[in-house]
């Protein structure tokens, strides 16, 4: 097939195709799929995991700071993922300092108000492995949905785009998981939830390298 023939084939495919380009902006598709998958993770928490005993006393410092950091991380990552799904999309990573700053501020408050002798016990908590696995597992349906939404995008750097998708999924899962997490310490959150989010980020980059190739 020479190039001229190809151009004419493509043009006839254009006319035979769906006609006008999809009117819906792409961010709605990403948002809807992300929200639906988040509901799946939320349902899993509500159905299978008991509500956090700390919620009974109203949201405390740990819940507020970790949920806020997760939500801000997810919002920033949503924007970054969307931006990178266009071929010409470029990205700054400065916004990552916002959720990080929230977490560090919460940590500083907690360490100011608690004796340093209790820090190690707080850091290890009672169920470090389970929380790490839960946050990772709860992220996966969201990550899968985001990757599906990204399939019709065209990221120039699929791995970076996938990593942002992982941060998006991890941020949402970490925020939702505060509804259950039995530990009341940001030292715990920073040592076990954050590595879980980073693991999901790594998965996202890995999966995107395979699936988002175009």
């Amino acid at each position, binding site marked *: 097939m020479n190039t001229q023939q190809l*151009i004419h084939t493509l043009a006839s495919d*254009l006319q035979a195709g769906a006609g*006008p380009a999809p009117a819906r902006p*792409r961010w709605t598709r990403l948002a809807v799929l992300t929200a639906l998958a988040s509901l799946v993770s939320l349902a899993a928490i509500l159905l299978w995991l008991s509500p956090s005993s700390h919620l009974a006393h109203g949201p405390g410092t740990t819940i507020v700071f970790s949920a806020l950091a997760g939500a801000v991380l997810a919002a920033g990552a949503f924007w970054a993922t969307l931006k990178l799904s266009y071929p010409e999309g470029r990205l700054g990573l400065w916004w990552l300092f916002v959720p990080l700053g929230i977490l560090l501020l919460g940590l500083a408050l907690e360490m100011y108000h608690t004796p340093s002798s209790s820090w190690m016990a707080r850091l290890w908590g009672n169920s470090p492995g389970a929380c790490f696995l839960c946050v990772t597992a709860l992220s996966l349906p969201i990550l899968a949905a985001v990757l599906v939404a990204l399939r019709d995008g065209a990221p120039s750097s699929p791995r970076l785009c996938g990593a942002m998708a992982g941060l998006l999924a991890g941020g949402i899962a970490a925020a939702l998981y505060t509804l259950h997490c039995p530990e009341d310490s940001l030292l715990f959150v920073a040592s076990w939830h954050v590595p879980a989010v980073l693991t999901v980020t790594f998965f996202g980059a890995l999966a995107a390298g395979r699936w988002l190739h175009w």
Partner: protein
Amino acid sequence: MQDREQQWAADMRAAQAGSGEAYIRLLESVSTSFRQFAGLDLRRFGLQPSDVEDVLQEILLAIHLKRHTWRADHPFAPWLRAIIRHKLVDFARRRRRRGELPLEDFPDIRPVAPVEPSFSMPLRHLLGDLPRRQREVVEELGLGGASVADTAMKLKMSRGAVYVAFHRGLAALSAKFERDRS
């Protein structure tokens, strides 16, 4: 430069609204620009002059398959540049993986003009070496004369995937035919 950007953007808008005429004008104009650019810059990517049309066809395919990712309120040229760059890097990477050396490394061998594959060639005995998908698509489309839509339905692939497989399959056949002949 400014004129071209405006012309491209206008043609792409018309194409997204369904105008085949504007689409052909756009793709031809992009091809002309790419050939000019490629003549100057291709070696930087480790490609040979005879690769220009192959890369160009992959770029045109990518433009077609990803045309919905251009937003009408954004400039066209940066979008196009990103696609061209992505496909050039991709092509060069595959070339390196196959371990082919650029002909320029051998001073007394000159690159030959690429041969256009045509279906009257004795294709069938060459088809066997292609990956299964590519073989099926080339058989359906090229030898069987089926339409892209029918082939996509029959093989349960997206139309885009059919185009890509067809194009890759033909390129591989063309290369193989060249090798067999020499």
